[in-house]
C-alpha cells in the first residue's frame, strides 16, 4: 500500500483530523457523549491507520514499544494519583469536591484529569495490542 498515492495523500491529511476529533471527544466528554475510552480508541486509530499505510517502522520511530508501555502505566498513575491526591487532601478516594475550593469546579477538574489518564492508557494499550499482532517479524 505504500505506493498507493491516493491512500497516502488522504491518510496524511486524515491523521490530524482524527487526532483532533479524538481530543474533542476527550475534553467534551464532560458536557456531551464522549470521554477517555472513546477518545483513546479514536486516537489510536489515527496511528493505526498511518501504520497500515506507511508501515510499522514509521510509527515505531515516534512511539516505540517502550514508550507506549510507559504511557500506558502513566495513564493509570494519573488516574490513581488523582484518587490519592483527594485522599491526601482529606477526602475520600476520587472525591473531586475537595480538589478546588468550590466543589463544582473540583468535579470538573477531577473528571478531566481522570479521563485524561484513561485516554492515555487506552490509546497506548490499543497500540500495544496492535503492535503485538502486527509485528510478525519474530516468527513466520
Amino acid at each position, binding site marked *: 500500500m505504500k505506493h498507493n498515492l491516493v491512500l497516502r495523500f488522504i491518510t496524511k491529511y486524515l491523521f490530524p483530523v482524527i487526532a483532533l476529533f479524538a481530543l474533542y471527544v476527550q475534553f467534551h466528554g464532560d458536557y456531551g457523549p464522549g470521554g477517555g475510552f472513546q477518545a483513546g480508541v479514536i486516537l489510536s486509530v489515527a496511528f493505526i491507520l498511518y501504520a497500515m499505510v506507511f508501515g510499522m517502522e514509521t510509527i515505531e520511530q515516534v512511539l516505540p514499544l517502550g514508550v507506549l508501555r510507559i504511557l500506558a502505566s502513566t495513564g493509570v498513575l494519573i488516574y490513581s494519583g488523582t484518587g490519592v491526591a483527594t*485522599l491526601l487532601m482529606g477526602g475520600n478516594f476520587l472525591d473531586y469536591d475537595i480538589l478546588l475550593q468550590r466543589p463544582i469546579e473540583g468535579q470538573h477538574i477531577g473528571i478531566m484529569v481522570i479521563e485524561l489518564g484513561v485516554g492515555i492508557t487506552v490509546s497506548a494499550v490499543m497500540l500495544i495490542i496492535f503492535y503485538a499482532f502486527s509485528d510478525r517479524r519474530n516468527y513466520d
Partner: protein
Amino acid sequence: MIEQNLSLLLVVIPLIAAPVTAMLPAGRSPWLFTLAITWICFALAIWQLTIVIDGSTISYELGGWAPPWGIEYHIDALNALVTLIVSGIAAITLPYALLTVERDIPLRETSLFYAVFLLCLVGLLGIAQTGDVFNLFVFLEISSLSSYVLIAMGKQRRALTAAYQYLIMGSIGATFLLIGIGLVYAETGTLNMQDLHQRLQPILDHRTVHTGFVFIVVGIALKLALFPLHLWLPNAYKYSPSAISVFLSATATKVAVYIMLRMVFTVFSTSILMITHTEFIFLTLGAFGVVVASTAAIFHYDLKRILAYSSIAQISYMVMGMGFASKLGITATVVHVFNHALMKGALFMAAGAIVYRLGSSKFENIYGIGRQMPWTFAAIFISGLSLIGIPGTAGFISKWYFMLAALEQQAWLFALVILLGSLLSVVYMWKIFEALFFHRPACSAPPVTEAPLSLLVPMWVLVLANIYFGINTELTVGVADTAVRLLGVTAYHE
C-alpha cells in the same frame, strides 16, 4: 488518616504499584518492590481484621457518593478474613517467587510478570473488599485476566493451551455472572449488596430473580471449578509457573467461594436456596465433586496434577458446606477456605521446590526424591496429613465442622461422602509419600540437594501454620462465627 482509608488502601496500593512495577528495569528490583507492596498489604489486612473481628463493619464510600448510588466498600469479618488470606498468601509467595521466577520466566519479562502479579492481587483484594456487585465483576475480571497471563507464562507450551482453555471457561463464567447481575439490576435498580438484599426480599419468588440467581450461581461455579465445570483447573495449575500455582491454588478459587457466599447469603438470602432447590444442587454436585475428583487424583502419576485434582475435591467440600445452609455448614466452609489456603499453599510450594530441582513433577522423575530433599518431603508429609484431616492439623478442624453440619441434619449419605473423601485423600496422598520416599529412584536420576532456603522458609511457615491453626482455632473459628452471624445464616432447624 491511614485507618479511615484502610479498606481502600488495600486495593489502591497494589493498583498504583502495578504500573510502577511495569516501568522498573528487569532484574531483582521489580521483585523487591512487589515484595514490599505485598507485605504492606498484609500488614494492612491484619489491621483491618483487628477492627472488624468484633463483628463491627467498615463502610467506605468511593468518590464521596453515598451508597446505594456510589460504590461502597463494605467490610465485615468475612471480607477481612478473605483479604487476610489473599494478602497473606501473596506476602508468603513473594520470597518463594524470587528463585522460581528466575528459573521460570525470561529475565526481560520479570517486571511485566510482577506487574501482572500485582494486578491479579488487586483483583482478588478488590473482590474481597467491595460491596458493589458490578464492581465485584470488574475486579473478578481483572484477577481472571491477569491469572490467564500468569498461567500462560509457564515454561511448557501446554501452559498456553491451559491458559486458553481457562480463558474461554472463565469468560463464559464471567459473562454468566454479568447476565445475572443485569437481571437482578433490572428487577431492583441497585447494585449495592446491602441495598440489593433489602430490595430482593419481597420479590424472591419472581421468575426474573430466579433466572438471575441461577446465572450468577452457574457463573461463579465455573470460576470456582465446581464439578462438572472443573475441567480447566488441573491443566491451569499443572503448567503454570511454580509461584503462580502456589498463589492461585491458595487464593483464586477461595475468592470464588467467597463470591458465592456473598452472593447467595448477603445479596439474596438463605431462603432462595430453598425456593430454587439450589441447596440440593450444591450438596449433590459437591458430593460428586468430592468423590470424582479424589478418585481421579488417585489415577494420576504427577505430583502437581494430583494436587490440582485434590483442590477440586476440597472446593467441593466447601460447596457442600454451603449446601447445608446452616450455621455449622457455613462455618465449615469459611474455616476450610482459610485452612485449605494454608495446606494447598504449602503443598504447591513443596511441589514447586521439587520442580525447581528436577524440572519435572512426574512420578517417574521424582521417585525417591524425599531422601535427598528431606525438608521438602517433610513439608509435603505434614501438609498432606492436614489435607487428609488428621487431628492436630488445620484440615481436621474443617473436616470436623463439615461432619457436624452433616450429622446435625442427619444427612447420613453426605456424612459418608465426607468420610469417603478423607479416605480417598489418604490413598492419593500416600501414593505421593511412597513415591517420594520409599520408591527406588530411577537409575538416570541426577543427584540433587535440598531446595534453597528461600523456598524452604516460606514453605515451612505455611506448614507450621497448618499445625498452629489445628491447635489454636481462635482466629479461624472465631472469625467464621462472626462472619456467619453477619451473613444471617441461622442454626439448622428441622
